């Protein structure tokens, strides 16, 4: 058990050349906005980055409370960044509650920037502090920068004549100004953004800019002492090209638009508001010029029902939700499966079961995706690993749905949906088109069209209502494989069930072989992951390999059907460890499919894995 000592020794979450900053405050303090704008300025400075927004489910939780704390963490640096960082080097705490809930994560010797103006007796007591931690010496193992940011913000915006409450709303910009100074970032993109955001209310824009400048000027002029000099990180090495930052929800939306375009189909999106999936509905509702129709339905079932109807009528039907909503859509997914209509179902997973943790991340819907319907109803399942991966995965889902005439489940999660990272903007002409050809050949005299005739991949023809001579009936009740009429006969149900399952398995012929991300097929231990755990697994395996450990990383995009070579690949390792943010769901599938001794590494705290947690598990697996 060498792991414990190593973990303590390394107080930096990743190798040097990166910094982790966490902004934490009340849910009304604008921390997500501050973090988002800091992210933009960081990206523009050429650093690689990853972010982790972590906020409560309540929109405006009672002020000053521990459960109302909203935080935004960013890890940025001059080298490749794969995670939002294990532990912050810098904690910006806007009130006592923010300090209390986040302090334990801060690295030893790290920097605390606290707004002393909000450390009132009342706020201290709400956070459960008997003494003011800024004054009682309890923060001695960290560097403390205690500033009355509230008062300095009020002073800075005084010329604009705002009320006290409105003036204090500019506090997050003061903080951002200081952070920009600390990391030698340009203020101009933020100024531009403020001017655009408050174009209709220039006084507010001016006040915010004044606060931003004041925070920056404070850093420049106050003699903060050793250790507070501005830090400039070099740009991270990156492939040449045009970049932007992108969140998972944006990338899924853009990927769906691209997928529909590559299929040469209009897109119909049925959605119902649910956290954290709603952002996709919001993005797509603004893209009507791309042939996108969005429909906010009366419930989750109506959202998928309408998407199925639209697919039946010749559009690419798409629906999206999170775990509880996906459960409601289950019966309709079965309908799309048995009627063999293309459909993309996006599941932005969140902590479950039931309402669970609406704003926290988890990967616990893999069973629901792979097994979660009545009857034998396998669907192709694709898992997104990061915001920038989401674009390609969404296109892949559209391709498989239309090529195989099947619903496809696209798994993402709350972390990917909200997190941002730099994205090298692809050239859309690099993607192969997969234009859909609707079936229009009317049967000859005395012949009858069979909607369940099949091509070489076992896909059935897609006939749009309105096509002359091809009128036919489909439905959720079993149909004859030879005529399409209702047929309950034993042999037919056996045949149709077998065909539908085989059709989905045929997708495996149409996807790439599984590759090894890091290491070799001859290594001792394989870490097999899926989805948003990619980053921490990657970094942990990287470090383990640097230490000379024989460990490889395999990260699966196609959860169902699995890549054809995966079984052979896994059998080459002595040990298999499957880190997942659930109680062991991919592990079950791997054991079932390949009879391999896959061991689980599970975390269901609503927080992503830390690199050191996975490193420790690697040490244990190799020692054991």
């Amino acid at each position, binding site marked *: 058990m060498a792991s414990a000592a190593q973990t303590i020794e390394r107080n930096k979450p990743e190798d040097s050349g990166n910094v982790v900053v966490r902004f934490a405050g009340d849910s009304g303090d604008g921390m997500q906005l501050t973090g988002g704008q800091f992210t*933009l300025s960081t*990206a*523009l400075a050429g650093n690689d980055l990853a972010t982790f927004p972590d906020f409560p489910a309540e929109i405006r939780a009672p002020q000053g409370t521990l459960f109302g704390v909203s935080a935004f963490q960013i890890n940025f640096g001059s080298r490749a960044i794969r995670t939002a960082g294990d532990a912050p080097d810098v904690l910006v705490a806007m009130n006592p509650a923010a300090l209390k809930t986040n302090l334990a994560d801060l690295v030893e010797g790290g920097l605390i920037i606290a707004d002393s103006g909000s450390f009132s007796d009342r706020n201290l007591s709400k956070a459960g502090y008997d003494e003011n931690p800024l004054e009682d010496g309890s923060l001695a193992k960290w560097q403390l920068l205690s500033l009355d940011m509230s008062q300095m913000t009020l002073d800075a915006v005084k010329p604009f004549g705002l009320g006290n409450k409105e003036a204090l709303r500019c506090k997050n910009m003061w903080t951002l100004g200081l952070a920009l100074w600390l990391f030698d970032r340009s203020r101009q993109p933020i100024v531009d953004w403020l001017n655009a955001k408050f174009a209709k209310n220039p006084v507010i824009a001016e006040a915010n800019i004044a606060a931003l400048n004041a925070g920056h000027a404070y850093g420049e002029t106050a003699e903060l002492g050793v250790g507070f000099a501005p830090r400039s990180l070099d*740009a991270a090495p*990156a*492939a*040449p*090209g*045009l*970049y*932007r*930052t992108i969140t998972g929800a944006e990338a899924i939306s*853009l990927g769906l*638009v691209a997928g529909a*375009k590559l299929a040469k189909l*209009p897109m*119909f999106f*049925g959605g119902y508001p649910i956290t954290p999936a709603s952002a996709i509905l919001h993005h797509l509702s603004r893209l*009507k*010029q*791309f*042939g996108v*129709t969005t*429909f906010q*339905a*009366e*419930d989750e*079932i*109506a*959202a*998928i*029902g*309408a*998407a*199925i*109807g*639209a*697919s*039946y*009528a*010749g*559009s690419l*039907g798409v629906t999206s939700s999170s775990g509880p909503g996906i459960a409601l859509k289950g019966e309709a997914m079965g*309908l799309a499966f048995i*009627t063999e209509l293309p459909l993309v179902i996006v599941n932005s997973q969140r902590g479950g079961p039931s309402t669970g943790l609406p704003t926290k991340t988890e990967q616990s819907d893999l069973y629901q995706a792979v097994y979660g319907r009545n009857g034998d109803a396998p669907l192709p399942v694709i898992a997104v690993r990061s915001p920038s991966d989401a674009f390609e995965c969404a296109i892949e889902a559209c391709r498989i749905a239309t090529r195989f005439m099947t619903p496809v489940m696209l798994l993402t999660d709350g972390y990917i949906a909200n997190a941002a990272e730099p994205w090298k*903007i*692809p050239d*859309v*002409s690099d993607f192969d088109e997969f234009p859909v050809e609707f079936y229009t050949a009317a049967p000859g005299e005395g012949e009858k069209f069979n909607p369940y005739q099949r091509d070489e991949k076992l896909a059935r023809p897609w006939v749009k*209502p*309105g*096509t002359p*001579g091809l*009128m*036919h*009936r*489909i*439905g*959720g009740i079993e149909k004859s494989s030879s005529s399409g009429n*209702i047929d309950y006969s034993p042999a037919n149900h056996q045949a149709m069930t077998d065909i539908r399952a085989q059709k989905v398995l045929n997708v495996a012929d149409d996807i790439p072989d599984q590759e090894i991300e890091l290491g070799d097929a001859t290594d001792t231990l394989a870490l097999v992951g899926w989805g948003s755990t990619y980053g921490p697994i990657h970094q942990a395996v990287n470090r383990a390999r640097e230490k000379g450990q024989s460990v490889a990383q395999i990260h699966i995009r196609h959860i169902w059907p699995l890549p054809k070579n995966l079984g052979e690949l896994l059998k080459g390792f002595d040990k298999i460890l499957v880190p997942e943010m659930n109680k062991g769901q991919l592990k079950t599938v791997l054991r079932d499919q390949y009879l391999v001794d896959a061991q689980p590494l599970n975390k269901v705290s609503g927080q992503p894995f830390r690199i050191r947690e996975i490193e420790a598990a690697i040490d244990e697996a190799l020692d054991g």
Partner: protein
Amino acid sequence: MNDMTPVETTLKDWETDQEVRWCPGCGDYAILKAVQRTMPDLGADPANTVFISGIGCSSRFPYYMETYGFHTIHGRAPTVATGVKLANPDLDVWIVTGDGDGLSIGGNHTMHVLRRNLDCQILLFNNEIYGLTKGQYSPTSRSGTRSPSTPFGSVDRPISPCAFALGSGARFIARGIDVHKNLGNTFKEAHAHRGASFIEIFQNCIVYNEDVFEDFVNKKTAPETQVWAVHGEPLLFANGEKGLALDADTLELKVVKVIDRDWQGAGVMIHDQTNRSLAMLLVQMPFGEFPMALGTLYNDPAPTFDAAVMAQNAAASEGKDANLQALISQGQTWTVE
């Protein structure tokens, strides 16, 4: 229904080769025939017509129509119909549902398809019972209905389908009887109405709820028990000897006697199918004390959902370049050399 070029067809063109599998004597046969007979009169095109149903006896309907058809899942036909119509507004969409399918498990969707005013025809076969699951009481069953699930009689009060539809914002409400000759006319009026047309059809389930509507469908007593609403005509029944008048004190309808055909003198109201208040009074008349109001009770078109969606899609796209490369390159970007 939307504008369309009339197509010449005959009854035969609308019949499938499928063996109809309802119980012999079921009211569904008569409704099927009435629809098939009406389609040629509408000039409808089988290739452009879609029948969409949920689950239940009535929902087998699409298999017997030589059109496009989708037998979906319990209660969800309006949702699938919404997607079909938004994806292709040129299609002529018919929804077939029942009292359990449309008012119990699918009540939410019925409400929303009506309030949105999707251009479609909704045929709700009301037999006041769950037939396909062997006879349990339904949301339209009268209190005290004995069934396998309510051996001591149901204790909940029934819903009035037409009052529900009106309350949901429907712009076309009609009532018909499975075996009545007027059913085809009601279908024609419903089809001519642009927007969601809601038709409650009293349908006799001969196995589990036989003759439950006998009180008012019996031909012998029909003159006394049925009042047929005809736009612009007085609301008369009992061979013109009785009529419906407004009781100004209670703001309810009342039955008045008409002497010597002087219905004006008796204060009988003229049916105005665009009068929503009158429609509500007609659909809520308690049967027994009043006759059953039948025919087109309300017909006042309003803009349709599908047209509004198409118009907004067009307006929001106007002058915008659908350049995907430009779209994905939006926001603040930077170049790595």
